[in-house]
């Protein structure tokens, strides 16, 4: 579904991604793990069109999408839940969700989508009229996920959705990710919680210093010595 080949991305003169190749098949949950500063956010932002790669290819459903602006990428069905949620603080919960349905493809059906999202997150319905900046960290992350779903994505990319949240909220977020897969939405999951990520995903990539150093089925990676030592603390 999503195929990335030899991708290189730079910030000015500093190169952050080196020849990254990665593939996500329809219906999969693919985890992308790596330590701080490995380049995970950079990779998601390059896919989303916020950053322009210097070389390499990105194809989505057979279409070359490298170099397209972010709004064109969303229109094609790739949505991102950015690091920290990035909800619009001075908009209400409902307005934030409506912004998620901004692409023309989904704007007309936004009331119906909103109902589904409220079903998935009853709490957001209760807080409908509240400004997003008054939400708790967990609620904000739920809102960010709900807002992403409002665009009816085919591929949903999460950037560290569980970061800094209480265990109960983390469990809730992983429950939702599993639910999305059951709904037929493909997931690319960036996580610092490596154990949980490898448990939920089908396959995973390990990114170190801007390069993919390991990839494979999660069951294998959970047994891999390097992964066990560097990421699972065993």
């Amino acid at each position, binding site marked *: 579904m999503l195929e990335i080949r030899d991708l290189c991305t730079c910030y*000015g003169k500093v190169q952050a991604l080196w020849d990254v190749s990665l593939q996500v098949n329809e219906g999969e949950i693919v985890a992308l793990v790596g330590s701080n500063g490995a380049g995970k956010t950079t990779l998601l932002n390059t896919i*989303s*069109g*916020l950053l322009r790669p210097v070389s390499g290819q990105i194809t989505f459903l057979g279409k070359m999408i490298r170099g397209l*602006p*972010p*709004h064109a990428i*969303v*229109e094609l069905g790739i*949505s*991102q839940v*950015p690091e920290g949620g*990035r*909800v*619009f*603080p*001075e*908009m209400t919960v409902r*307005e934030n969700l*409506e*912004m*998620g349905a*901004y*692409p023309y493809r989904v*704007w007309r059906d936004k009331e119906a989508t909103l109902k589904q999202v409220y079903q998935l997150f009853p709490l957001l319905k209760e807080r409908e009229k509240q400004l997003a*900046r008054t939400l708790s960290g967990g609620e904000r992350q739920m809102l960010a996920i709900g*807002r992403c779903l409002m*665009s009816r994505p085919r591929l949903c990319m999460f950037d560290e959705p569980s970061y800094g949240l209480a265990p109960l909220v983390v469990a809730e977020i992983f429950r939702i990710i599993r639910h999305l897969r059951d709904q037929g939405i493909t997931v690319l999951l960036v996580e610092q919680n490596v154990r949980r990520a490898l448990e939920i995903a089908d396959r995973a990539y390990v990114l170190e210093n801007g390069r993919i150093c390991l990839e494979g089925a999660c069951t294998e990676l959970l047994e891999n010595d390097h992964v066990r030592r560097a990421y699972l603390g065993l």
Partner: protein
Amino acid sequence: MTTVRILEIVIPGLLLGGLYALIAMGLSLQYGVARILNFSHGEFIMLGALTTWTLFTALGVNPFLALAMCGPAAFVIGFFIHRTLYKRLLISSPSPAVFESSSMLASFGLMFVIQNIALLAWGPEIRGYSYLSIPVNLGGALFGANRLVTLGVAIVIGMTFYLFISLTRTGKAIRAAAQDPAAAGLMGVNINSVLALCFGLGAGLASVAGMLISMCYPVHAVMGREYTIIAIIVVVLGGLGSIPGSFIGGFLLGLIGSIVTQIEPGLALVAYYAIFVLLLLIKPTGLMGK
């Protein structure tokens, strides 16, 4: 104080306030959303005012018809300026801070260019015309009909604009882009178009305000600078990026101006500066800022 006396202060204050509100809402879009502290803002006011004056005195065109032409024309010019000049600066700026300073300098340049073209076209003379200046009795006090109509039009345009920003799909995109441009892009908002739209709308509002100003006050080729400063003060007063803040802040400053003018004409601008400095010291986020 008698009711008449109060009315004589409040109505001109509201009139001034309505004009300030329009000007400030325009700048609020340019500075709060597009991050351009536009020093050429007042020049669009001046262009609106002098064009209306020319159309009225030379061709007998009704000022409101002039408004219907100048507003959209200024919008198109503003949109085009953003698409060519500011978009390029944005692309070549390594960080938002660099863009804020380079765009401000560019707007300074634009200010001088437009001002000098206006001086060539219209000369430095002070111009004015009389339209609808029939006195109207309001609670015992007399006001020119042109002033009351101007106040009404400013309020209607301001409110319409507020509703547009609050309720429409595009208005929401503008607010989202003001709060987090990258996140707005991830929602599917075409950021470059929204920024150009905001700059164009700001220019359009300035030109409409200029037309209204020409109906009530004398106008000339270098009138813009004072209004640019006032717009900046109101935007800070109302809270950066807050459209309702600019609307309310405009009326507030207009009322203050009117009261000060009653006590000592000529001190209004000094009072504005004093408020500005006090505000920066006490509450730099403004009335409705966060």
